């Protein structure tokens, strides 16, 4: 019986399969087409690192904040860093988001950061790594990726330590968090210098245990005149003093400073009531007042913007003049500043806002006049 049944079923099955064939063929063809279309994304061609390069510059403090976090194409990563070197800037600051590397607890994907750091070091650049951006598993549901509970500080410390260990000898400086004095950057909660100091207290020893040579930078405070009690921000000068009051001094090696000039000349005098380039001197004075004069500082963001409509922008010619002068000030007047990394070298894509007018190179790698003037300056050409 079963034999006869099988014989009867076979032609039926064959007919069904035959009827399905055209659909299967079409489906298969679409699947193949989709795979072919995706192939370039799945298999990014490897880009050779090339020969070891050195930066030649008349001002060894020149630096830029690159923006390679969301740059997926390897050749663009390489080209960006080549252009930084060719401009004559030996320093870069780059962001390495925790959420991108450790999507699952304890499972690290270093592919992108490996690529960025390998190309940067091959170009002879000194990498300052900015760490932050919390993965979903390390924060409450529906919270901002810039929010971190105090009980999760050890998780962040483990990531920072793993990073410091992996890139020992390649990354010399690590910045802990970014602009913790802004509610926006502190997970839309009130900025809290005591809580930030607790973060440093947790992260600093972990990094040092993993790589004693790396320099840990704290602060990276946003220059702001926010009044006391403002829900948006905490005055950077007051925040730094509050950090010292909370006992932050032993938990950082250098202070990261954000030095935006807005529409002021870089020689405009420092004034607590004004956000300008020389506000850096006020932060430095707080370091000195708190017995930290032996520690260096580093400008890890800053600069001028020449958007035609932004109220804090300057004319393009002023931007060139001010930027050149700012590098000069750091070189000639501020021995306590290790490097000046201005925001931002290039974006992976146009922001279509005033932000595009902070860059030195367009998204398609066309150098802006500022880039060429800085290149001329770094080469000592009058």
């Amino acid at each position, binding site marked *: 019986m079963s034999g006869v049944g099988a014989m009867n079923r076979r032609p039926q099955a064959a007919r069904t399969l035959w009827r399905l064939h055209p659909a299967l063929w079409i489906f298969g063809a679409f699947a193949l087409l989709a795979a072919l279309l995706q192939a370039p994304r799945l298999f990014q061609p490897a880009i050779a690192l090339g020969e070891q390069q050195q930066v030649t510059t008349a001002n060894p403090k020149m630096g830029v904040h690159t923006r390679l976090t969301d740059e997926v194409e390897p050749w663009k990563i390489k080209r960006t860093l080549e252009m930084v070197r060719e401009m004559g800037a030996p320093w870069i600051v780059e962001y390495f988001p925790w959420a991108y590397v450790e999507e699952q607890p304890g499972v690290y994907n270093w592919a992108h950061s490996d690529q960025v750091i390998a190309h940067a070091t091959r170009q002879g650049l000194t990498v300052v790594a900015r760490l932050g951006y919390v993965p979903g598993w390390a924060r409450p549901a529906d919270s901002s990726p810039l929010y971190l509970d105090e009980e999760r500080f050890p998780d962040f410390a483990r990531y920072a330590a793993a990073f410091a260990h992996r890139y020992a000898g390649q990354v010399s400086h690590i910045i802990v968090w970014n602009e913790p004095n802004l509610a926006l950057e502190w997970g839309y909660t009130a900025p809290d210098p005591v809580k930030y100091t607790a973060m440093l207290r947790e992260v600093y020893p972990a990094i040092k245990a993993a790589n004693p040579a790396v320099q840990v930078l704290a602060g990276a405070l946003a220059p702001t005149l926010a009044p006391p009690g403002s829900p948006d921000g905490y005055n950077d000068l007051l925040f730094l003093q509050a950090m010292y009051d909370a006992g932050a001094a032993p938990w950082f090696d250098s202070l990261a400073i954000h030095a935006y000039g807005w529409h002021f000349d870089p020689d405009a005098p420092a004034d607590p009531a004004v956000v300008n380039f020389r506000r850096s001197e006020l932060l430095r004075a707080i370091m000195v007042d708190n017995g930290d004069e032996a520690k260096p500082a580093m400008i890890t963001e800053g600069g001028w913007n*020449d958007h*035609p*409509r*932004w*109220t804090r922008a300057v*004319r*393009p*010619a002023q*931007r*060139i003049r001010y930027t050149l002068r700012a590098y000069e000030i750091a070189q000639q007047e501020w021995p306590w500043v290790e490097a000046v990394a201005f925001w931002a070298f290039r974006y992976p894509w146009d922001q*279509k*806002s*005033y932000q595009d007018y902070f860059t030195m190179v367009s998204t398609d790698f*066309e*150098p*802006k*006049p*500022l880039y*060429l*003037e800085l290149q001329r300056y770094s080469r000592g050409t009058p």
Partner: protein
Amino acid sequence: MNRRRRWLLAAGGLLALVIFLLLQWWWAGDGPLPFLRRDRVWAQIQSTRIWRVGLDPSFPPFEFLNDEGEPTGFDVDLAHAIGRVWEVDVEIVAVGFDSLIDALKAERIDTVLSAYPIDERLTQDILYAQPYFDAGLRLVVRNDSPLAAKLPPGEAVEPERLRGLTIAVEWGSEGDMVARQWLREGAALTVRPFETPADGLAALELDATIDALLVDQVTFRQAEAGGRPVIAAGAWLTSNPYAAIAPKRGNELRNALDQALAELAQTGALQQLEEKWFSADLPENGTPE
């Protein structure tokens, strides 16, 4: 039974279609059936007879504050001209430039009319009307320059056609960037940077060694309409079109904007507005005399 099932299926299908059409109506007009689209913003303008226009009054001559602190300028007048076509009152709402799109999405305003450059990437979120001004880069020469005849309107400006010439630019500007690119590509010309566009313009007028100036259309139109002896040669080198913006579901509003702008262009009103606002030698926040 089979027949009954077929009837049930047909009834279910019909019901699904009705629900789909109702959703289309409720969703206020972004579905695939244009005849059912209903633009709530346009309907509101029609019912209240008030059109809320958002702009950032910090960009003369398009929009700025006059001595009384009131928004004025090309876009303000343009809004009122459109309002007259539609027979509605115009309410100008001052919003920071970087917040204009958010204000539109949050329905604080009905339209952005603020010398706003078109960004193709935003077309998922907003609707652009036809551009009413292109602020891109121009090659500007003296009225009597042979270049004007050599490069008639619309003719592409190629660097090889500028061989041996001296081009003024605003130092660090887009014009400077383009000129430097030409130089890198081997163009045989000389580039002279100036601190401001006004300095470059003055040099073009007074210094016979300067053959041309690379500036944006706004600067050129101000100079031209202000009676300066200059003319634009050839086509735009770059395009930077300004357009009014309607909300994503404001398809009727966008169409009405297009129609009104076309009407204003046809009657010459748009040209008159340009003459008015680009002829004035505006102080930083001044009003034309």
